[in-house]
């Protein structure tokens, strides 16, 4: 029995070791090297999103270094190297690892971990050691309202995640009055719907239902039954699994409304598996491959264009990682681009000069516009970038297909009202 125990332990250990052989690609250091430090959730619940984010960042770094680095006016050339550790999707070691990145690994700039919770812990350390940190995947507004002066957000903040849906509703049916909000009772979704409610009420809407559900909820009947019959819009949701179930049950219960706008799940290609139930559902995304932010649209708005076009980014990403980029990938890439743009404009990698360039930044990229708040109350908050809204429709064969419907500048199709159920 004991021998079996030893054998079992050895086999298990070997299999554990073999299955975890997934080392990310290293990046060669150049002569004049600026080190970018970050933690990445290589393991744990945030693994998928965080891996795409690092892929995006690595692609950017490889391209910049491959093109010979950033040439500064004084003739110096800056190349980038990265240093990162696994934070296991947990907060416990984030501060320890960022302190190590700054003090032991001499990181010059920082990128945030994925998610607002982990970023909050990292931001304290970044500010303490006077390091600029560009955040990606950290949408919560509160991170930028704590008095930090060196933390810059690349995502549209949570407070504006669904407000565009209200604008769509106004445009589609100006006489609409009633909105029902059903949301996951967690930090992210609650942050989003609190501001959604405020925005809707400012626009003259009446929020007739405002209910939070537990993250593990699988039966939404008690919430759906509370929706008044004459409601004009249903909004809310939370993360992928619960939002998908909510959308399906709204369809199954034949609730009639003008629009349904939900968080996180609708932009995912897997959402199409709902079939009929996904048709007309609107979702917001930080970036969509379909979205058309171009040099021309930048010129029209009088904003400087920076970086590759959307097509170039998608092509390079697909070639490098053999998968379609998600908005997490674009977020990681853009976090690098923000630093690149600021260093180029500052003509230096000095923190104070780069900070000044970031404060003054107003650029258009394939990902959208990038501009940061500079007031003392919300310094670093993203104020330029807008969410892209997609809506599911049917193609000619009757299969679900998503279209960008908002903002009008990047739209590929006009939004439409939910068909009667």
């Amino acid at each position, binding site marked *: 029995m004991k021998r079996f*125990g*030893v054998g079992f*332990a050895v086999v*298990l*250990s070997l299999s*554990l*070791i073999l*299955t*975890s*052989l*997934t*080392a*990310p690609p290293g990046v060669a250091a150049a002569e004049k090297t600026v080190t970018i430090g970050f933690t990445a959730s*290589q*393991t744990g619940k945030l693994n998928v999103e965080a891996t795409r984010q690092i892929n995006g960042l690595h692609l950017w770094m490889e391209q910049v270094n491959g093109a010979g680095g950033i040439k500064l006016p004084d003739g110096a050339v800056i190349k980038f190297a990265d240093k990162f*550790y*696994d934070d*296991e999707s*947990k*907060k*416990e*070691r984030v*501060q*320890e*690892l960022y*302190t*190590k990145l700054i*003090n*032991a690994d001499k990181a010059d700039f920082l990128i945030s971990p994925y998610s607002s*919770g982990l970023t*909050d*812990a990292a*931001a*304290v350390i970044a*500010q*303490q050691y006077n390091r600029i940190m560009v955040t990606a995947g950290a949408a*919560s507004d*509160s991170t930028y309202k*704590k*008095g*930090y002066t060196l933390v810059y957000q690349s995502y549209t903040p949570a407070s504006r995640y669904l407000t565009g849906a209200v604008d769509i509703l106004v445009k589609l049916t100006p006489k609409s009055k009633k909105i029902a909000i059903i949301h996951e*009772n*967690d*930090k992210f*979704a*609650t*942050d989003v719907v*609190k501001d959604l409610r405020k925005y809707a009420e400012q626009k003259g809407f009446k929020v007739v239902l405002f209910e*939070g559900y*537990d993250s593990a909820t699988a039966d939404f009947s008690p919430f759906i039954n509370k929706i008044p019959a004459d409601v004009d819009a249903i909004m809310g949701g939370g993360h992928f699994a619960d939002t998908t179930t909510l959308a399906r049950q709204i369809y199954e219960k034949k609730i009639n409304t003008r629009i349904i706008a939900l968080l996180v799940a609708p932009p995912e290609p897997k959402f199409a598996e709902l079939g009929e139930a996904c048709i007309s559902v609107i979702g917001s995304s930080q970036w969509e491959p379909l979205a058309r932010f171009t040099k021309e649209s930048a010129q029209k708005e009088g904003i400087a264009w920076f970086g590759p076009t959307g097509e170039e980014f998608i092509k390079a990403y697909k070639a490098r990682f053999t998968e379609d980029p998600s908005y997490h990938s674009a977020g990681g890439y853009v976090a690098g681009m923000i630093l690149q743009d600021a260093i180029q404009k500052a003509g230096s990698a000095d923190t104070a000069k780069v900070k000044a360039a970031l404060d003054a930044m107003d650029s258009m990229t394939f990902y959208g516009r990038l501009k940061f708040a500079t007031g003392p109350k919300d310094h670093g908050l993203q104020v330029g970038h807008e969410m892209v809204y997609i809506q599911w429709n049917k193609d000619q064969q009757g299969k679900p297909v998503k279209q960008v419907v908002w903002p009008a500048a990047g739209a590929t199709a006009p939004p439409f009202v939910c068909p009667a159920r």
Partner: protein
Amino acid sequence: MKACQTPGFWLPLVIVSVWGGVVLLIHQDTMRETAFILLMAVGLASSLNILLGYTGYVSFGHIVFFGLGGYTGFYLLSAQDWPLFAAAIGGGLLSALIAGLVGLAVLRLRGAYFALATIGINEAARAFVSNFEPYGGATGMFVNFSVYQKYGGPGPALWTTFIFLWITALAVLLVSYLVKHSRFGLGLLAIREDEDAAMVMGVKAPQAKTITYVISAFFPGVIGTLYFFKNGNIEPGDAFQLHMSIEMLVMVMLGGMGTVMGPLVGAAGYQWLRGYLLTSPIFKDLHLAVAGAMLLLIILFVPTGVVGWVRNHVRRLQKVLE
């Protein structure tokens, strides 16, 4: 005072005192951060050991006291403007109070039923806090960066937090020893071996278990406040993580339950290993596999924990390692 001459009493205290003293003396930030994680684990594991090791009651949801205490302390800090030390004590006291009330009910359960009930308490606390607006509801609470200025800036604030944690870890070890070697502690050990027999012999089991539960809940509350103050924010998902509870159990088992030295060795060893593997260039992509394999081997071959194994094999060290 006789206790002071016993190595089992002073050895853990000297180890932690010297360790903290060296960190303070060298004054290196990276070292402080590592020591913070390790000492936090020592404090949490030793607190759990007071219940688990001495009474044999397995609390799977002990992290609830870290979360509730952390929330209360953070609330006192941010909304009521209490100084850190007072807020941490406040957090600890609330945890102890809740443990006292809850303990009266759940400590009537034994074995797996008690373990399951503690998980339930943790989930209930998470659900309560997620809907409790004074504690920020689902979005939690945060402090402005300027709060650290009260402690001389963010750097000194982190050092102050570390010193408080160091003192707390020393206090847990001291209490752990005193409980074990008191008449009260002997009653607990009797409960661990056979609760019914202990009651027949005159041990007031329900009362003794509740007091133990209260003691073991106080320190996680203090540590929770310090940890969340250092992070600058608190939210339900971070405060009531079941995996931290399970890690606490692993650390106690690894070092040797029912000993004062065991949780110190288990917690520091476990967290040091995790930290080393996470940042080592060779193992950083394999850290979970290596940590898992080592845990497996230790539990397979050293079921009494490191301290238990040494005590069993080296007779001379039996009085040194308590």
